[in-house]
């Protein structure tokens, strides 16, 4: 038996299928004719002989099909014919197809769009070698710089060095500066001049081992190596990201001969990283990487390279093959103890030893990267993913219902085909192919929709500030997801109607009349679908109601300051080259404050280290005689004299800062009400003394005033403990500048900026906005979830109402006969309408009845995202139920009216 011959024959057959079919038919006809002849020879009459021959031979069509099936190409062949048949069938009922495609496109598109974000933020692996081997010391929870005795999140550079040397569990270890330095640097031209304006560059400092350890190779030139990270300060080299190379240097092929100036140092460009590499932090995309050996020279110039107890680095390791996470954790913790104790300048006080012995470093696998945004967005994205999945389910129920109704219309067609010998499995396959065709077209449209929607989503997620650098473009991962969703929907909405359609009683369906009995038999399923749609819609609308009410609750929260009519901008003074404690800096700030104060329309103006939702500088307030006060986190805010007036934070007792408080006078502080109660429980706090934090100079502050509590980081939080210091006494390299104004924003905005520029043109002004805007930005998540869930809730209700309308129209058309008889017997039109309306209302009532407990259970899961109400909020429940009932009534009104307009004579004649 030669296999190649067989394959050849099979392939030839593919192209000659029609001929083969014809030949088979002819062959069988001859056979039949000969059989008939034989019967006649045996004495039968010609007609009887024909009958006998046919009886003996059997169903020719079926034999032909079976014979051709032997060639195996039948499947392929019939799929094509199924598809073309399906498309024709879909085109025949255009209304249904459009509704189905639209709901599919929206459902699949929404799923794809949300998934693309979810994928980018939560799921996708880093584009590096074997990302699953990468682990992070700590949980990736912190960034910044601190000088603690020991820390489980951030590490010092000397610690990284020793860990890299001493460990036996990692094939390599790398360190990443936990913050991204945003530097206004210059791209030098080929002659080394700065002929262009400065531009903002996001600079990431990494150890020399970073690129080799990740296995990332440069697309041009080379990446950083160990040799670039040996001695401090003399390796001015930089690796550019593909994005920066393209954007700022127009993909100059001669880039390796050009230089970049950051601060006072000129850096040689040694390479360009690969296109897909964005570093190791999802939601960031550095413009360039500089070796950590240069950390002191990249503005703002942290001194973190040689200090044993200055922690600023994330440390990642690549597990050796065969080493478990537990083994690595044990060794890292052992080394942490050893290395910390072994530092030459270690302070082994009782307290430090106790702290060290309690310290345990967890290791976190980071195959999908570090991320600051993951924590923020994982919950909302998961909620939205669930919401859109439910919407898709509703859409599926809808389409199933429409197909079900149609399959009844097609019952005769299907019955005829079965009678002619089509196997039920064949018909089911054909109906499923139709569903799949529908779903694939819907999925295709959905991908198009998702491409637009995901960009829109990303903008919403970014919350009005710079768009987050997330890659949400189409990729195989995403298309695979969409395809899986599409096929799943086709199976979901296609299977029930297909099995329904083929389990017919042939004779019933072939009969001309359509008795009420057959309609009754099919209704429970359709009704079940509508009920589940209503129930799911209720869950979604209740959820949307909860989120919307949370958002409005948040909007009504009193932050403790007056959010209206405050201009807010950030100024950067690094171009001036002053150190933080340069007295000229303070003079400049005071000058700006007083100049702006004099502008028309300005009521008050002040600098501050923070306003709202901007991070914090936290440090304990050490009050003599207060035990455990080190454990209370107090946000320290450094402000100008006019801050409380600008923010309209009321003074409760004492006074606020004045010009009398200078660098040389007694250091003073204003504390918030809550801080006063907590740290000075007895007596009047005013006049009492305290010190700030561990890392501050040994300096006594005197409490001079108490102000009302304000929210500091988010509207949801309890008012924070806040301690205000004056920048005249505690120098600060400011960012925030606030101006309380009257009149139009644009006028004030330009006059304030002009005033600042007139004082010093080198001061850079960025992030001009309002306080109100900044507050609403802190609610990005809540707004995102509320708006999208409201949108999808509305979509769900809309889809359900289509489902109800479709079902009731169908029911009315099936019951035309019955309605005619009722009316002929004297039923009033209103009775008939009520007959239909009652059915709709009972369906919706059952749906709501099932939906309420489902909503209570489902929405319990999102309790975290709610503010100011519980997940069992009765108002949201009632509102959703009323909404659904009224929408359902509208959807049912038209079929009910049609029922009442039935002309009894016509209805009866119709039978």
């Amino acid at each position, binding site marked *: *038996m030669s296999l190649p011959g067989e394959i050849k024959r099979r392939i030839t057959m593919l192209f000659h299928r029609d001929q083969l079919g014809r030949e088979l038919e002819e062959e*069988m006809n001859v*056979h039949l004719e000969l059989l008939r*002849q034989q019967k006649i020879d045996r004495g039968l009459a010609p007609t009887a002989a024909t009958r006998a021959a046919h009886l003996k031979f059997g169903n020719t069509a*079926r034999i032909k099909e*079976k014979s051709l099936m032997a060639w195996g190409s039948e499947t392929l062949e019939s799929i094509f014919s199924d598809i073309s048949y399906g498309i024709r069938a879909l085109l025949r009922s255009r209304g249904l197809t459009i509704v189905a495609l639209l709901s599919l496109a929206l459902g699949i598109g929404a799923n794809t769009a949300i998934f693309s974000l979810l994928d980018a933020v939560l799921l996708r692996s880093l584009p590096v070698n074997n990302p699953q081997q990468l682990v992070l010391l700590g949980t990736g929870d912190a960034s910044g710089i601190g000088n603690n005795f020991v820390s489980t999140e951030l590490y010092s550079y000397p610690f990284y060095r020793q860990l890299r040397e001493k460990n036996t569990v990692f094939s390599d270890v790398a360190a990443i500066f936990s913050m991204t330095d945003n530097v206004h640097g210059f791209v030098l031209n080929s002659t080394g001049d700065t002929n262009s304006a400065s531009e903002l560059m996001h600079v990431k400092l990494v150890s020399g081992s970073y690129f080799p350890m990740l296995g990332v190779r440069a697309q041009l030139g080379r990446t950083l190596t160990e040799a670039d990270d040996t001695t401090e300060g003399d390796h001015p080299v930089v690796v550019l990201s593909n994005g920066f190379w393209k954007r700022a240097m127009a993909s100059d092929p001669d880039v390796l001969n050009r230089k970049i100036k950051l601060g006072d140092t000129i850096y040689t460009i040694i390479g360009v990283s690969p296109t897909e590499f964005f570093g190791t932090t999802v939601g960031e995309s550095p413009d360039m990487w500089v070796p950590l050996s240069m950390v002191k020279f990249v503005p703002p110039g942290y001194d973190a390279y040689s200090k044993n107890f200055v922690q600023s680095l994330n440390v990642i390791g690549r597990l050796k093959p065969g080493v478990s996470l537990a083994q690595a954790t044990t060794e890292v913790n052992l080394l942490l103890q050893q290395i910390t104790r072994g530092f030459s300048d270690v302070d082994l006080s009782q307290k430090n030893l106790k702290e060290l012995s309690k310290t345990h470093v967890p290791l976190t696998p980071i195959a999908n990267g570090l991320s600051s945004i993951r924590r923020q967005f994982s919950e909302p994205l998961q909620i939205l993913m669930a919401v859109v999945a439910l919407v898709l389910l509703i859409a599926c129920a809808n389409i199933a219902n429409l197909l079900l109704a149609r399959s009844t219309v097609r019952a005769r067609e299907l019955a005829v085909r079965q009678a002619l010998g089509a196997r039920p499995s064949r018909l089911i396959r054909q109906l499923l192919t139709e569903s799949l065709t529908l779903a694939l077209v819907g999925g295709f449209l959905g991908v198009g929709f998702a491409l637009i929607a995901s960009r829109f989503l990303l903008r919403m997620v970014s919350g009005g500030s710079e768009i987050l650098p997330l890659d949400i473009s189409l990729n195989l991962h995403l298309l695979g997801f969409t395809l899986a969703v599409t096929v799943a929907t086709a199976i979901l909405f296609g299977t029930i109607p297909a099995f329904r359609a083929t389990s017919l009683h042939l004779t019933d369906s072939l009969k001309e009349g359509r008795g009420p009995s057959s309609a009754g038999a099919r209704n429970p399923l359709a009704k079940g679908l509508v009920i589940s749609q209503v129930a799911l819609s209720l869950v979604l609308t209740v959820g949307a109601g909860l989120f919307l009410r949370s958002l409005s609750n948040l909007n009504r929260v009193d932050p403790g300051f007056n959010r209206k009519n405050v201009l807010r901008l950030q100024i950067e003074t690094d171009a001036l080259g002053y150190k933080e404690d340069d007295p000229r800096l303070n003079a400049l700030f005071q000058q700006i404050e007083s100049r702006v104060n004099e502008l028309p329309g300005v009521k008050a103006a002040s600098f501050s280290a923070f306003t709202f939702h901007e991070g914090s500088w936290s440090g304990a307030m050490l009050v003599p005689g207060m035990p455990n006060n080190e454990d209370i986190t107090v946000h320290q805010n450094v402000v100008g004299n006019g801050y409380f007036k600008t923010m309209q934070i009321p003074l409760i007792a004492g006074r606020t800062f004045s010009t009398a408080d200078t660098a040389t006078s007694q250091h003073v502080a204003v504390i918030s009400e809550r801080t006063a109660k907590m740290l000075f429980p007895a007596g009047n706090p005013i006049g009492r003394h305290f010190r700030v934090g561990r890392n501050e100079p040994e300096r006594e502050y005197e409490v001079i005033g108490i102000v009302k509590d304000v929210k500091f980081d988010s509207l949801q939080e309890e008012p924070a403990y806040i301690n205000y210091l004056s920048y005249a006494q505690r120098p600060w390299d400011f960012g925030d500048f606030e101006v309380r104004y009257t009149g139009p924003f644009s006028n004030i905005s330009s006059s304030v900026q002009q005033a600042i520029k007139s004082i010093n043109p080198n001061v850079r002004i960025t992030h001009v906005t309002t306080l109100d805007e900044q507050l609403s930005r802190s609610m990005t998540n809540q707004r995102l979830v509320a708006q999208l869930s409201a949108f999808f809730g509305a979509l769900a209700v809309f889809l359900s109402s289509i489902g109800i309308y479709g079902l009731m129209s169908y029911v009315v058309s099936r019951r035309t006969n019955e309605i005619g008889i009722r009316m002929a017997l004297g039923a009033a039109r209103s009775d008939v309408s009520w007959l239909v309306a009652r059915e709709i209302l009972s369906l919706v009532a059952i749906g709501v009845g099932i939906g309420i407990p489902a909503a209570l259970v489902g929405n319990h899961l999102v309790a975290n995202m709610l503010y100011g109400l519980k997940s069992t909020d009765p108002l949201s429940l009632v509102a959703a139920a009323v909404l659904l009932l009224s929408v359902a009534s509208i959807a049912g009104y038209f079929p009910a009216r049609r029922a009442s307009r039935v002309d009894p004579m016509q209805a009866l004649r119709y039978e």
Partner: protein
Amino acid sequence: MSRDEIPPGTLYLLILKTLALRKRLHGYEIAEAIEQRSEDILQVEEGSLYPALQRMLIKGWVVAEWGITAGNRRARYYTLTADGKKQLSVELSKFQRIMGAVSKVIQTA
């Protein structure tokens, strides 16, 4: 007169053997020949015959060509190939092995 259906698995054998004896037959003749030689005990289902012939064509055991019947009609004639002859002996020995086994079981009973 009761006629028995062909036991499963033996249809190939019967067709192959029939073609080996009579060289060149069309479908009706194959069915007739089997029925006659079995003295009308075996009944060939056309519903099985044609799919089986198609499968044998695919396997390359038989080839088909169009010819004219005695009654002057166009019909498709099947002939055994070399592969078909080999297959006949395979099927024969398989059948004899099974029959031998079956009769042993029956005799000892």
